[in-house]
């Protein structure tokens, strides 16, 4: 049984088709990185999964049940864009209200637990309106964690978090899925961060799922390249550009050769042309570059 199984999902806003024929499968125990450009239909899909907007067609099943069933809905934790909190109330009050809505027994104990999980226990008495963006995101995630959900749907949860906040979130995510029954769908533009935790990926474009893969499949799909530094970078780039089809300089100041080659071959070639290589290594492109390449292919 999968946590989420979506078939042929579509959503129209008037004449505009935001999602068209989308299929999506999120296995149990997965951290599913949901990736796409702005306006690709990620948030619309997530809102449909969460029951915030009705579908125009297709089916959504959560743990094999219809997504509108109260029994399943009660076990879905959500953070869409920003948490729905009353600004004039404290973090604690907002959490307690959500616990009340979820009919959680021992609400106080549960709220303390989730606030501790996101390291917000010290700020429980703060008014929500006085919280920083990062704190608000943590409150949102704490709210989503209330009631021991089996599925978390998080839209851009990493926005506004500092390095420590991101580390905490990674810990939270891995902790949530460790028993193998709970799953997380997380969309983010911070692909580097996403890659550190995601076990599965779904890439959406123009409302259609263009690729779904596991982290292992992504790893296998990512091309290797040779990165080097030399005493004469400009001349090296020119020379390598004459021999290889794709040579680029990266942000760290390395020259990257993406063609099928070896470091030995490059060192020899540059040495024959009077250039001494000071550093050379082979590496793989990450999710971010893979995604950018995929988008370029589509265009």
């Amino acid at each position, binding site marked *: 049984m999968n946590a989420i199984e979506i078939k042929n999902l579509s959503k129209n806003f008037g004449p505009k088709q935001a999602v068209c024929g989308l299929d999506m499968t999120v296995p*149990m125990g997965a951290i599913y990185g949901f990736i796409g450009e702005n306006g690709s239909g990620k948030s619309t899909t997530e809102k449909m999964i969460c029951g915030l907007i009705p579908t125009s067609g297709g089916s959504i099943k959560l743990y094999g049940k219809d997504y509108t069933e*109260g029994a399943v809905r009660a076990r*879905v934790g959500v953070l869409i864009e920003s948490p729905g909190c009353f600004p004039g109330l404290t973090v604690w*009050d907002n959490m307690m209200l959500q616990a009340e809505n979820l009919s959680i027994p021992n609400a106080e104990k549960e709220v303390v637990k989730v606030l501790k999980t996101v390291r917000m226990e010290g700020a429980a008495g703060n008014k929500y309106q006085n919280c920083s963006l990062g704190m608000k995101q943590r409150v949102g995630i704490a709210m989503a964690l209330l009631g021991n959900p089996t599925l978390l749907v998080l839209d851009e949860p990493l926005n506004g978090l500092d390095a420590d906040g991101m580390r905490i979130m990674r810990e939270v995510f891995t902790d949530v899925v460790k028993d193998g*029954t709970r799953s997380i769908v997380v969309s983010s533009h911070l692909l580097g961060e996403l890659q550190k935790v995601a076990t599965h990926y779904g890439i959406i474009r123009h409302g259609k799922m263009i690729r779904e893969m596991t982290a292992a499949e992504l790893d296998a799909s990512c091309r290797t390249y040779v990165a080097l530094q030399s005493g004469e970078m400009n001349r090296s780039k020119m020379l390598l550009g004459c021999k290889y089809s794709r040579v680029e300089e990266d942000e760290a100041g390395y020259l990257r050769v993406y063609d099928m080659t070896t470091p030995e071959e490059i060192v020899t070639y540059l040495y024959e042309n009077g250039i001494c290589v000071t550093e050379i290594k082979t590496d793989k492109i990450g999710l971010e570059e893979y995604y950018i390449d995929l988008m370029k292919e589509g265009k």
Partner: protein
Amino acid sequence: MTRELKFESPTFLQRLKGMLGVDFYRLFHTPLFYIFLGIAAIIPAMVSAMTMMPDQSGNTMEPLYSNVWQIIAASESLYVINGIADYANMNMVFIFGGIMVSIFIGHDYKSGYVKQLFTTHAKKQDYMMSKTIVCAFAMACMCITYFIGGTVGGLLVGYDTAVNVNSLILAILGKMVMSLGWASLYTFLNVIFRKYFGISIASSFFFGTGILIIGVAAIVENLSIPTPFLNIFLYGSSVNASLASNVGTFLVCIVVSVAWTLIYNFLGTKLLSKSDVY
């Protein structure tokens, strides 16, 4: 290790209890509620004690009311308002209440609370019912402060206090009961205009003042429809609860209020189910 998942559906009462808990907590923790309770007390006191109108000759000004209880209810059931004194009574609570409900529900949407709510097991009908009950409670409370304010104002000025006590009590209870019907109407209007806060308030105001309904009344007046029928349906029988009320009037108020609530909650639920929540 994989453990078995259990999915338990919360009962209707569990869901409603949770939602009512949240809404009542919000109501009692928002200054808005207390401000409107104050408004509901001050306005009738001021209207009762300070409003002057020209007499029939138009030469001298005289008080609008002569009896303390005229500010509470009209002397008889009237679907069409004949004079300003018939108009300015406890029905004003439904204007204040309409504005309060608009702000209360508008805040649900502005804060994102509704978004958070409907991602859980909450049903649309629970939301409509919870809002209706809480807002009706708020309006019923306003009826009480209105009664206190209006009575004190009238007594201070020294108006006549003669009244049929049973009818007065039944009129007040009738209007309090009608709070439920009005709250359901306002909740429905605010669900329709949920994305347009200003229009929500304006629509509540127009319906609350009865401006639209009075317009309809003027049209249907020529259709020879029996007056009791119009009293019941045109203004939700709020005008039916007058100083000439009896048990029958009160029962009519209950029936109409429940009917309004069922109708508007049904329509609101349908609308919320068919449209984007957020």
